[in-house]
C-alpha cells in the first residue's frame, strides 16, 4: 500500500507547470492537485507515474471569480471552498448543496473542483454539474490554450479530451439565471460514497409552466450528460406530480446504464427513475 517512487516537480507559475508537462507528460508524468483520487490509486499501484507536477503552490490557480455570467474556478480551488455559497442566489445554493455529497469533510479540504473534472469519474458530482450547466474547460499547454465544451470533454469512464501535455487551468460554469430553480438528489449506500445514480435539474417557471429545463444524470452511464427526452417531458408543462413522473420515466428509458458490483443495469434504471423524480420534487420553490 505504498506508492511507487516518482520525481516531484514544484512549479510556481502556470507557464512553469506547462513547461514541465511538455517535458514530463510524455515520460509518464502527471499533475498532482488535491491528491484525493491520485494518491489512493498510487497506493494500490494502479498508477505508478514517474513524475508528479505538484500545482498546489501556483497562486494564480487558487481563485474563484465571476466574469459576466460565468463563474471561473481555478485549478487548485478546493471542494471545501463551496461549503458556503460562492455566488448569489440559487447558483451559490446549488453548489453548496451538491458539495455536501462529495466524499467527506477532510477530503474536501484537499480535493479540487478541477481535479474532479480531470479525473472524470462517471459518478463525480462536479462532472454532473459541469455537464448539466454546459461548462467550458480551459486547457493550457506550451502549444497554446483551448476551450473545450463539456459534451466534448468527457469521453468515457475516467477519460477526457485533455492531452498529456495539457493543464486544466480553469472551469467556467455558466451562472444559473435569476429566478432559476434547481433540485439535486443522489442515491448511495453510505454517506460520502460515490453515487450509484444522481440527478441535477434546473429550470425557470414562466406563466405557470416550466421553461429552459435541464436534466443531468450522473453515475448512471459512462459519463454524465443531459437527457433531452426528460427535458422535453418538462418543457411547457405545469409543475405537478404527473409532469415529474413523465420526465422520470423518459430518463429511465433514455439511458444506457453501466453495470458494476453495486448495481446491474435494471436496478440502475430503477434508480434513475427515482433520483430524477426526487430531484424534481426537491426543486419545487
Amino acid at each position, binding site marked *: *500500500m*505504498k*506508492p*511507487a*517512487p*516518482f*520525481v*516531484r516537480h514544484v512549479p510556481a507559475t502556470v507557464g512553469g507547470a506547462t513547461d514541465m508537462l511538455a517535458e514530463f507528460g510524455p515520460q509518464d508524468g502527471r499533475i498532482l492537485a488535491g*491528491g*484525493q483520487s491520485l*494518491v*489512493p490509486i*498510487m*497506493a*494500490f499501484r494502479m498508477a505508478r507515474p514517474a513524475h*508528479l507536477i*505538484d500545482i*498546489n503552490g501556483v497562486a494564480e490557480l487558487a481563485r474563484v471569480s465571476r466574469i459576466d455570467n460565468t463563474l471561473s474556478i481555478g485549478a487548485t480551488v478546493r471542494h*471545501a471552498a463551496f461549503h458556503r455559497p460562492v455566488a448569489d442566489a440559487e447558483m451559490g445554493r446549488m453548489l453548496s448543496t451538491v458539495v*455536501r455529497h462529495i*466524499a*467527506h*469533510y*477532510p*477530503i474536501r*479540504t*484537499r480535493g479540487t473542483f478541477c481535479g474532479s473534472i480531470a479525473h472524470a469519474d462517471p459518478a463525480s458530482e462536479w462532472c454532473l454539474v459541469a455537464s448539466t450547466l454546459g461548462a467550458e474547460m480551459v486547457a493550457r499547454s506550451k502549444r497554446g490554450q483551448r476551450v473545450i465544451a463539456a459534451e466534448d470533454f468527457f469521453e468515457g469512464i475516467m477519460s477526457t479530451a485533455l492531452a498529456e501535455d495539457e493543464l486544466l487551468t480553469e472551469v467556467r460554469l455558466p451562472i444559473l439565471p435569476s429566478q432559476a430553480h434547481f433540485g439535486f438528489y443522489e442515491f448511495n449506500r453510505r*454517506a*460520502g460514497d460515490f453515487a450509484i445514480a444522481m440527478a441535477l435539474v434546473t429550470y425557470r417557471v414562466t406563466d405557470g409552466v416550466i421553461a429552459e429545463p435541464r436534466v443531468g444524470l450522473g453515475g448512471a452511464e459512462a459519463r454524465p450528460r443531459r437527457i433531452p427526452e426528460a427535458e422535453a417531458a418538462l418543457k411547457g408543462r405545469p409543475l405537478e406530480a404527473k409532469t415529474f413522473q413523465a420526465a422520470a420515466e423518459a430518463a429511465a428509458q433514455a439511458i444506457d446504464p453501466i453495470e458494476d458490483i453495486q448495481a446491474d443495469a435494471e436496478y440502475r434504471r430503477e434508480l434513475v427513475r427515482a433520483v430524477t423524480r426526487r430531484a424534481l420534487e426537491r426543486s419545487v420553490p
Partner: protein
Amino acid sequence: MTGKVAITLNINGRDHAISVEPRRTLADAIRENCGQTGTHIGCEHGVCGACTVIVGDDPVRSCLMFAAQADGVPIRTVEGLAKGDTLHPLQRAFMDHHGLQCGFCTPGFLMLATAVLEREPNITDDDLLDVLASNLCRCTGYQNIIKAVRAAAAEMRA
C-alpha cells in the same frame, strides 16, 4: 533522481528535520521519521480517517498527502492536544461519554473534531453529523462519539 529530499515537519510546535523520498506519505513520515505514533494508519487509501491530522488549519487525511507537501506548514497531531496533565475538553468528553473502546480510531476523530470545532464553534447538529460521518469506528457504534463531541462543543463554547 527519486532520491531523498530534506524537509522540516513542524509537529505540535516542534521542528523535525528529516530526509524522505517524495513518495513518503505524511502519515508515514509523522510515525516513522518523527516517532509520533499517536497518528494511526488504517486503510492507507483515504477511507477510514484514522490518520486525520491538522495541516495549517485544515483537517486532512495524512495518508493522502506526501510529507514533502507539508514542509514547513504547522501540523497538529493528537500528541499536542493535552496541556501537560490536563486533557483537552474533547479528550475528556470521549472518556466521560465512552466515545472509545479499542481507541484505534480515536486520534483521527479527535483531530477531525478539534479542527472543525475551532473553525465553527456554533456548528449545527446536522453539520456535525455530516463531519463525524467522515471517519470509521469498528467498536463504538458512533452514538457515544457523537455525544462526546456535542458535549465538548458545548463546553468549548461556554
